[in-house]
């Protein structure tokens, strides 16, 4: 394409050679830059970008900067996941230039072929390498699989004897309402003797069957200060302990290797105390009382409610009978009322009928009754004619014995010493005498 472009004339009056095609010049520049001596440079990394084929970053110091690139395959061999801004590195390589084209921009970079993290970054790189090795061996998992008691009775604590971490752990446990037994295993926590001493303390605590959980506590510090807690032997020991270890090393921004292998990693000793005793004892005591109360209440209610149901059920037949009895009484009352009403109605009807009948009878039998009256009158008269009083009025007398009984024969007269003669106007006492005596 460039060959096809017309070759323009140079700038009039200029004594410089050319004009040359820019591609030719760029290629020549690339060759010249590549010809520079290959060196090592050091500086702070900034703006690391990981691409699929290449990795880019800048290397800076107080007086200058250099754009750097590295093949991704070379970067991966370093075993570094990433590098934060400011990490000091030593880079080996040489200048390189990409001449670009009509469709792409040219770029200059220091092509890095080897790189080493220096200073604290060096320590970090060591830690990262060990972290990866431990992870690959599966040593981050065993501790996390250990069951942790929620209410341990004996807690082992590894810390510096005079450190603040010790007080913080104690305060944290007290705040939890926990009042069991703490076993202190004091150890140096930052010099070169620290890692073996801590390892020994952990092993000794774990050897006591009574110790149910171990807290490793240390306050904040530089990476170099905390480096003991990245010790390989220490970390391997922790990973294989039978007792769960809770680590609280440094501040929350620090991440030591013991944090990775421990059962739980905490940012402060206070949190470590809470992790060692997951149950807030004071709250748990209150909760236990609440639960016990609810259980007791529910238990009582369950019985009482059933007793009520039972009582209701036992009353049910009697209630049923009583309901029927009440209904029956009601029916009886209604029946009586109905009967009374029917009787009254019938009575009135009967009376009316009787009256009508009487009237009809009276009307029908009036003549016959007159005849009967007349016969009756006649009979009365006949009867009156036979009255003794009438005979007495005609001059007859009635003889009566002392008891008033009529005497009707001579023989009966002779039986009494005295008799009474009843006349129409009064009575007279008489003494009968034998007929012969009269003479």
């Amino acid at each position, binding site marked *: 394409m460039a060959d096809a472009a017309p070759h323009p004339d140079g700038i009039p009056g200029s004594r410089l050679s050319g004009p040359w095609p820019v591609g030719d010049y760029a290629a020549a520049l690339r060759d010249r830059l590549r010809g520079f001596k290959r060196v090592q440079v050091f500086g702070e990394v900034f703006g690391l970008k990981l691409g699929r084929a290449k990795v880019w970053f800048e290397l800076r110091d107080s007086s200058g900067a250099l754009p750097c690139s590295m093949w991704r395959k070379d970067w991966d061999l370093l075993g570094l996941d990433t590098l934060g801004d400011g990490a000091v590195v030593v880079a080996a390589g040489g200048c390189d230039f990409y001449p670009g084209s009509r469709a792409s921009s040219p770029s200059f970079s220091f092509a890095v072929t080897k790189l080493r993290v220096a200073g604290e970054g060096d320590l970090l790189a060591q830690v990262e390498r060990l972290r990866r090795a431990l992870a690959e061996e599966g040593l981050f998992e065993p501790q996390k699989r250990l069951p942790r008691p929620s209410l341990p009775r004996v807690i082992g604590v590894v810390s510096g004897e005079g450190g603040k971490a010790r007080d913080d752990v104690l305060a944290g446990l007290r705040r939890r309402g926990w009042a*069991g*037994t*703490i076993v202190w295993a004091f150890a140096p926590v930052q010099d070169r003797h620290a890692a073996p001493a801590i390892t020994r303390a952990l092993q000794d605590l774990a050897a006591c069957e009574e110790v149910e959980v171990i807290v490793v506590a240390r306050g904040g510090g530089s990476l170099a200060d905390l480096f003991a807690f990245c010790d390989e032997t220490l970390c391997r020991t922790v990973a294989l302990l039978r007792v769960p270890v809770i680590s609280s090393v440094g501040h929350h921004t620090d991440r030591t290797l013991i944090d990775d292998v421990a059962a739980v990693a905490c940012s402060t000793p206070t949190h470590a105390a809470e992790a060692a005793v*997951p149950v807030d004892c004071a709250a748990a005591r209150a909760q236990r009382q609440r*639960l016990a109360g609810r*259980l007791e209440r529910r238990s009582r209610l369950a019985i009482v409610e059933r007793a009520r149901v039972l009582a209701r059920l036992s009353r049910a037949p009697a209630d049923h009978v009583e309901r029927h009895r009440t209904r029956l009484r009601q029916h009886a009352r209604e029946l009586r009322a109905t009967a009374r009403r029917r009787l009254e109605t019938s009575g009135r009807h009967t009376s009316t009928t009787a009256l009508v009948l009487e009237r009809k009878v009276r009307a029908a039998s009036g003549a016959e009754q007159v005849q009967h009256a007349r016969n009756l009158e006649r009979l009365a008269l006949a009867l009156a004619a036979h009255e003794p009083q009438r005979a007495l009025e005609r001059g007859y007398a009635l003889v009566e014995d002392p008891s008033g009984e009529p005497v009707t024969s001579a023989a009966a007269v002779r039986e009494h010493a005295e008799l009474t003669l009843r006349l129409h106007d009064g009575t007279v006492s008489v003494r009968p005498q034998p007929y012969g005596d009269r003479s």
Partner: protein
Amino acid sequence: MSDAATATYETACTRIEEIIRRLDSGEAGLRETLDLCKEGSRLVEFCAGELDAVAHGLEELRLDELVARLEAGSRPGATAHAA
């Protein structure tokens, strides 16, 4: 926190909550109610025992003191528990 990390105290508490929920539902028959109440009471007693075990006063020992005590044949916290 994994399941294994929750020990028997919390398991017991969870079970007590379940028991109370079941009782509150009113669906349990009499026999089940009585059984649940018995189980719940047992669990409450267990929880109380666990809490009592860490309520006798915080005791601090150094590792060598613990070892000496173990060699003498007494368990840590035994003195406090006995009191």
